[in-house]
């Protein structure tokens, strides 16, 4: 009431109290910061836990502990000799052997995805196995292994597995074979590198074009090779239309992309295995690669 208020000059004016908000009952009047010793103790615990975790990670992943530089160079040299891989790229002769073995565990390949076996195995980590242009000097400075010593033999391609070229892996040089000397080493290398990335040809499902292959192509490839654009025209990248069997067999601007019965020579499969296709989108799953491989290996029929 007005009569309760002090009259002018009767005493000090009381300070107005702020109006409380609903959030104030959850508010702390003071947040205490950690003192120096508290901070040091907690940071110490964090550091110890972090170090222990990193150690566990290295152990679990089988990562090598830090080795002296000399030991690391020795290891690189021996690995390069065994696989025929140079720092810049593979050595044509011995690289074939390493490319076939798939000796490395499946994992991240040179492109980081490693979703196909070949990405992780063999020469993939050192560069494009089919690109010989970047092949350089071996790590130890010795000359490349001569093509004549390549373990590849005509008509006897090593299967994907460690046994196929274990002897070549062990010594780096296979016994001289008159047949091997007649093979163009570059062609042999390319074919073997491509074959090493293929799924196991002995374990392929029986597939049909319409029910198995076309759904994959429609889902993963037709977007760029046969889908209509907004203006009504068709998007046919590189002249390759993948909407029908006839169009697939007609090939691209650059020629045939499927060689019936020969997955290794089929350019379409090569691009898929290298991860270059699909150009826009996730890589094909192993199951999808197996279906495409099976279809081509079984003759690439229209049925």
């Amino acid at each position, binding site marked *: 009431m007005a009569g309760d208020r002090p009259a002018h000059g009767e005493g000090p004016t009381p300070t107005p109290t702020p109006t409380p908000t609903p*959030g104030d009952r959850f*508010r*702390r009047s003071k*947040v205490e910061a950690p003192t120096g010793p508290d901070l040091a103790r907690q940071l110490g615990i964090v550091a110890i836990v972090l170090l222990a975790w990193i150690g566990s990670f290295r152990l679990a992943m089988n990562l090598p502990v830090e080795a002296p530089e000399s030991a690391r160079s020795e290891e690189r040299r021996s690995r390069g000799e065994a696989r025929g891989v140079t720092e810049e790229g593979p050595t044509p002769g011995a690289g074939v052997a390493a490319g076939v073995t798939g000796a490395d565990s499946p994992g991240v390949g040179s492109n*980081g*995805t490693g*979703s196909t076996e070949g990405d992780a195995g063999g020469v993939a980590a050192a560069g494009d196995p089919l690109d010989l242009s970047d092949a350089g000097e071996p790590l130890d400075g010795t000359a490349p292994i001569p093509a004549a010593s390549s373990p590849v033999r005509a008509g006897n391609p090593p299967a994907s597995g460690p046994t196929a070229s274990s002897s070549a892996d062990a010594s780096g040089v296979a016994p001289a074979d008159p047949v091997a000397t007649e093979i163009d080493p570059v062609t042999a290398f390319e074919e073997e590198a491509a074959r090493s990335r293929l799924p196991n040809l002995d374990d392929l499902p029986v597939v049909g074009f319409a029910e198995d292959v076309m759904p994959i192509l429609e889902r993963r490839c037709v977007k760029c090779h046969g889908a209509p654009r907004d203006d009504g025209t068709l998007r046919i990248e590189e002249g390759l239309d993948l909407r029908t069997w006839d169009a697939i067999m007609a090939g691209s601007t650059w020629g045939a992309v499927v060689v019936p019965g020969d997955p290794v020579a089929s350019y379409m499969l090569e691009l898929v295995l290298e*991860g270059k296709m699909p150009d826009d989108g996730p890589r094909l799953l192993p199951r999808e690669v197996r279906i495409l491989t099976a279809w081509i290996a079984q003759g690439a029929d229209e049925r």
Partner: protein
Amino acid sequence: MSQFLETIFVTHPLHGMLVHFPIALSVVTLAFALLALKEGSEAFERAAFYCLVATAGSSVLAAMSGYRDVLVRFEGDAPLVPEKAFLGVTLILLTGALSLARALDEELLWNPRTMVLYLSGMLGAVALTASLGFMGGIILYGW
């Protein structure tokens, strides 16, 4: 309906749908905790705790769906599986332990003797989810 269910559980990778939850929740957890300290707000602190529990729960779901994707979609041949498994298990253990500790001690964030540990754990969870998400990106889109 059956097509809808098949799309959800077979065609679409379930893991890819679920991983966004722990990633987002871990970031929000840390943000709420920092806000709580700045404002002295117990409401923000409580929100951070709830987000932390949700991070732990959604991490378990993401891990289960990831394991299923490895087996079904990649037929056991997915890249980066050991690394992702290790980081995923670490994330579950870390967020689970932090949630438990906070449930037992409401003063965890306010106590100067535990504040840094609690915040470091949250920061670690953010780092783990970011790393896991980055690896997932490598699997899908390459390196």
